């Protein structure tokens, strides 16, 4: 099942954060694409991946989803 989910991540400030986040999500099994929107402070994740896993990885990377 390919899902697309959007997470609101208040800690996103800049291009660096965007890089960190996509780097953190890239090795996660099932993640096909990650789009970080700096202005909207959101992360869009496409792929067949458990919501809980994405949330944990984001939190571990220092960007807890709201």
């Amino acid at each position, binding site marked *: 099942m390919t899902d697309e989910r959007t997470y609101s991540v208040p800690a996103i400030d800049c291009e660096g954060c965007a890089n960190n986040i996509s780097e*953190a999500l*890239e090795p*996660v099994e099932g993640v096909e694409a990650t789009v970080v929107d700096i202005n909207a402070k959101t992360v869009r994740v496409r792929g067949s991946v458990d919501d809980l*896993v994405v949330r944990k990885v984001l939190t571990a990377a220092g960007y807890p989803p709201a």
Partner: protein
Amino acid sequence: MAVAAESRERDGAVAVARRDLVVTGMTCASCVASVEDALRGVPGVRSADVNLATERARVEVDPARADVTALVRAVERAGYGALAVSEDERERAATEQQERAVRRAYVRALGRRLAIAAALAVPTMALSMADLAFPALMEAAWRPYVLFALASPVQLWAALPFYRGALSAARHRRADMNTLVVLGTTTAYLVSVAATFFSGLFDSLGLEPRQYLYYDTATAIVALILVGRYLEARARAHTSDAVRSLAALGAKSARVRRRGGAEEDVPIEKLVVGDVVVVRPGETVATDGLIVAGSSGVDESMVTGESLPVEKRAGDDVTGGTLNRSGAFRFRVTRVGADTLLAQIVRMVEEAQGSKAPIQRLVDRVAAVFVPVVLVVAFASALAWLAFGPHPSFGYALTAFVAVLIIACPCALGLATPTAIIVGTGRGASRGILVKSADALEAAKAIDVVAFDKTGTLTVGRPRVTDYLSCAGIGEDEVLRLLAGAELRSEHPLAAAVVEAARERGLSVAEPESFEALPGEGVHARVDGRDVWIGTPDLARARGFAELGDGMVSHHQAAGKTVLVGTIDGEPGAVLAVADVVKASAKEALAEVKRMGLRTLLVSGDARRTAQAIARELGIDDVRAEVRPGAKADLVAQLQREGHRVAMVGDGVNDAPALARADLGIAIGSGTDVAIATADIVLVGGDPRGVPRALRLARRTLATIRENLFWAFAYNVALIPVAAGVLYPFTGWLLSPVLAAGAMAISSVTVVTNSLRLRSAHIG
């Protein structure tokens, strides 16, 4: 690992820093007192704690006034070896290696002296006793000279460490066990030398010089005491094996996956948080992290003591040092170096092993006055024999003097408590029980009430669907799939339980097309074109399903469960009961605690009905429900006022004050850092059976300490009057100095072996 914790007091602005030293060459409680005195004598030192068994000194200094070299010099002046433990991680490893080398060299040197002493003591004894079988030997003029030749290397070379120790003690106007050994054996040896070379002196006093050959006594004492020290030094090296083997668990390198998929081997110290590490079957997990792909069974027994491999998949935490068994996975590094769980465990156990049990402080004080008292007793008994003894009174006086000095050596006394604590805490660590200080072990003994927090301690801490009944005609899996779809967007823990229940059945949960949360009631969503409601029974009633499973609803509620009712397209869908389930081993843990004769108590913030249901299920004696988070500490305090000694078991931030307040705070592994910081004992891994195990371990360790103190002390004290000859007028008994030396060696070895028995103690 930071060994020097600096803190600054705000008012006086006095800085205190901690410095750790490795101290070598200490053999008894008196040595400990000497080193402590030497360190306290250095200007700027606020306190000094020396542990004989770990050979560590922990010194608190004012860093502006005292540096480490001054401390090292002070210890060396007192006649012992010292090595500063570095604050730097890498230098520290080097220091530890150096330390091990120094210890190995010490054991080897002792071994050499022992071998020579034993090789010469045996013929000395044989030749001395031979006159019993061959009376003619008594007359042989060469005999004293041969004995002299055999005994001298023992007295002048093998016994050198005793002389050195006694000398440095004397320089500081102290007397320790070396003083006793040196005084005793030197007296015996010198009298023999006089009888050998100046026999005229004895003749003129009317004494028979051949009866004053005590070479056998002197050599046997030196050899036996060397045996004791050698065995003790070797056994001591074993006592801290448990921690060393924990520390050695870590992998040397890790396979790091770079962006794009390229992999490279990276030495463990170069790993950084955020790296992605690939772990294949049979490999050791390099550091702490979060699994992002793959799944596997991981053997965590080295950390938690739980022998069955734990199934891990994406989203689960892994711990550095654990062993990957079956599958392959990759994880994101979350902690490295000193922050990892393993490093924290090692640090905690080392701290505990270096800490002094209250009982040890008493022992130290006694030991400090013990040796001077023994010297006085020895001289007094010698004088008494000279004055009142039968002929030859000089011989009796000499025997009593030497025997008293030798029997009274407090060497076993210095080992009794620390060896038991080291082996006990090490044993605990290997079973996932981290004892933070020796005080905790003593506190655990007096406990009579064990209070358990509920959520996360006895229960999994996460609600799960326990009962599910579907009443729609579209198949129960389909109903659950739709309900889970409706809950997918909700952040309520109950919603997560429904989604998880669907995933466990392998259902692919669909995203809702529309979603609306009704706070406190439930959710309303459109999933796969169907209109789905799920929420409280009240919500269902409001939607017109008054008759729906009311009997079942109240049945579940009576059992302390939360009930959810779902409807699909206006038709009744399903009734679900959700509850925080009890950990699999909780019941056994509670039964064991009760078998130990302790009262159990459940403390929970939940509604009375929920708490009571759990208490009934687990057989807990008493329940305090609806306890506000801050009130747990008050409850503990109230129990203490009623005269109870309370152990509190908990995991959360809100348990921390109660853990600190309790006589014994036990934090359970999955717990938060705050809870772990305030607890006295930490159970890694979250198995509540750790509670009875920890209590049993504490009891065993304390029993061992008591046995050790008995062997080390009572026994010596009881034999001093015998050695002095108190029994002689009544029974004719006088303790031979050789037997006294044997007894001493045996008591040291008994104490250490008794402690080592804890390594295999059955604690459940």
